[in-house]
């Protein structure tokens, strides 16, 4: 890759390998994953359930408990600095200010015993030096912006008093509070109705336009990804199988797995009695086999797919597929 191509990459992940020790061997959660995200850009990370999306996001922030997790190789460059090599104290600072994460399960980042409002504004008090009352004012404003009714009164509620989607929004408000340069958002809108989802995505887009915030958006909702992302990376069995501009990847998929995903979505414009899932099961991540990880389920598979090693290769400018026969995918 030419140096010019990297200009502006805020986050650059290189050949990241993550494994978990479990009974009966090691689970390879990601294998040689590489991608980059530029300032102001949104990368959509989609893919199979259990393919390593959440593990990947946590690894970038060094939040995986070790053991059982182990980073076996690779680099995570943020603004040119390898996060994996930083002392923990510096990393903690970065987590509070430069990079924020919205976890798939909101209770990962909320304590059950504290008022929600105080938790949302904790970063503002610690990292931005706001007084308690200034933080409260800002906090109420944030809760109002994310559509919490009666925001001032519900500021002091505890998490058990909020619905799933309200907690999800609280965590987004918490992540946005300090104006991060990079946001890792793991399924941030699954529990929101489409009108509130729209409002939340608008708030995020606003932060991107104003502060140049970059975002990695993990989502199973292809519609959300299609309307929000500049580029898409598709993950399967711990590897990236296709990357490229959103319109290219969704409009002209060059990997059979991506194509299968598009075909299994229920659609608003037609009513099918039966949906078309991809047949078969993903491979066992504890027993990686040579060849293409999708081979057992692929309708395009040939002999070569069983032993030849696959890697992302460009099929069009900026569009890459890990299929050995991308031209036959239609």
């Amino acid at each position, binding site marked *: 890759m030419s140096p010019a191509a990297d200009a502006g990459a805020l986050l650059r992940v290189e050949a990241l390998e993550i494994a978990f020790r*479990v009974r009966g061997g090691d689970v390879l959660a990601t294998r040689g994953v590489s991608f980059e995200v530029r300032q102001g850009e949104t990368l959509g990370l989609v893919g*199979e359930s*259990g393919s390593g999306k959440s593990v990947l996001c946590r690894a970038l922030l060094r939040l995986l408990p070790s053991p059982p997790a182990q980073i076996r190789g690779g680099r995570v460059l943020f603004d040119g600095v390898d996060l994996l090599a930083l002392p923990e104290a510096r990393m903690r600072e970065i987590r509070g200010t430069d990079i924020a994460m919205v976890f798939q*399960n909101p209770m990962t980042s909320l304590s059950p015993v504290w008022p929600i409002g105080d938790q949302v504004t904790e970063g503002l008090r610690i990292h931005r030096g706001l007084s308690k009352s200034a933080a409260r004012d800002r906090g109420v404003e944030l809760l109002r912006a994310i*559509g919490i009714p009666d925001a001032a009164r519900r500021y*002091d509620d505890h998490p058990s008093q909020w619905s*799933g989607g309200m907690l999800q929004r609280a965590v987004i408000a918490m992540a946005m509070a300090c104006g991060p340069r990079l946001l890792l958002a793991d399924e941030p809108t699954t529990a929101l109705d*489409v009108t509130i989802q729209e409002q939340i995505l608008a708030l995020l887009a606003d932060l991107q336009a104003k502060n140049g915030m970059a975002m990695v958006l993990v989502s199973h909702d292809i519609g959300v990804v*299609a309307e929000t992302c500049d580029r898409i990376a598709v993950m399967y069995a711990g590897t990236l199988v296709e990357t490229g501009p959103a319109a290219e990847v*969704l409009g002209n998929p060059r990997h059979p797995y991506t194509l299968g995903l598009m075909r299994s979505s229920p659609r608003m414009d037609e009513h099918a009695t039966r949906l078309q899932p991809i047949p078969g099961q993903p491979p066992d991540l504890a027993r990686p086999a040579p060849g293409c990880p999708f081979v057992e389920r692929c309708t395009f598979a040939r002999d070569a797919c069983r032993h030849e090693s696959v890697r992302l290769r460009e099929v069009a400018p900026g569009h890459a597929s890990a299929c050995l026969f991308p031209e036959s995918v239609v």
Partner: protein
Amino acid sequence: MAVAAAPLLTVRDVHVRFAKPRGLVDLLLRRPPSAVRAVEGANLALLPGETLGLVGESGSGKTTLGRAILGIHPVAEGDILYRGRAMGDPMPDWQQRLRREVQMVFQDPYSSLNPRMTIAQTLAEVLRFHRVVPTDGVDDEVKRLLDVVGLPQAMATRYPRAMSGGQRQRVGLARALAVRPSLLVLDEPVAALDVSIQAQILNLLSDLREALGLSMLFVAHDLSVVRHVSDRVAVMYRGRLVEQGTRDEIFTAPAHPYTRMLLTAVPQLVARKRARVVQPATEMTEATAGGCPFAPRCPQAVDRCRAVAPAEVRLSPTHIAACHFAGG
């Protein structure tokens, strides 16, 4: 076969409230103790073999209503009947029977699974407790259940913390299906699944419904999923059911402005990055003071909406909406 089937589940004018502990501010301002009115006057009926989709605003009371049906939250007013009999009926063995026949798949799969039990142990416990299969068949049944929800057998010995979000969600589903329920309340059961596994699960549910006459209350935000699974759809806003109708009535002739707003906001599958506009935050109060709960956001609101709560308007034998302007 012209006999109308008796409903399996009847929810009649149900209210659920949560007392709000008074915070310091409330004490200082001498505010009286208040309650969150999570569900206000809900009415629904579910026939055997029928699927009712429940959609609505986040925080509108869908989970609370589902949990009230399971008897997890007490009902402040109103009745919930299962097979025509009150949930709280003192008949011998009734509670035991309800515990088996009525199951729920919880929205948050993590907090509903025991972190100290492996997946196989969790499933085996339910199978033994309800004596679903003979003791020597438990292991095989656990294997079958994992298969049915598309989890590899290697997951059997895992603990919930060592699984992805979607893997946990499928364990919750396997546990609910284990006892072969008649009524299933599913709270966002496919939200954490990729569309291929989602398709597999939705096909599975439709098979179970054909084979066993399973009835479902299906809570979801994804309208394309709701449209796919539901015979009828109910729409909830701020604790109230604001519209109910058949799938086609709701999706092709929505009568409530909130339902219409939902349908126009559905993201399309065509990749086109959209410029989004932040709407100014409207202070949405819970105390709607008698008016329509949707009035602060409703594009059609007039003065009357803020003063008088709309009554339910019947638009067809199956279609009702609570809006002053429903039906013209």
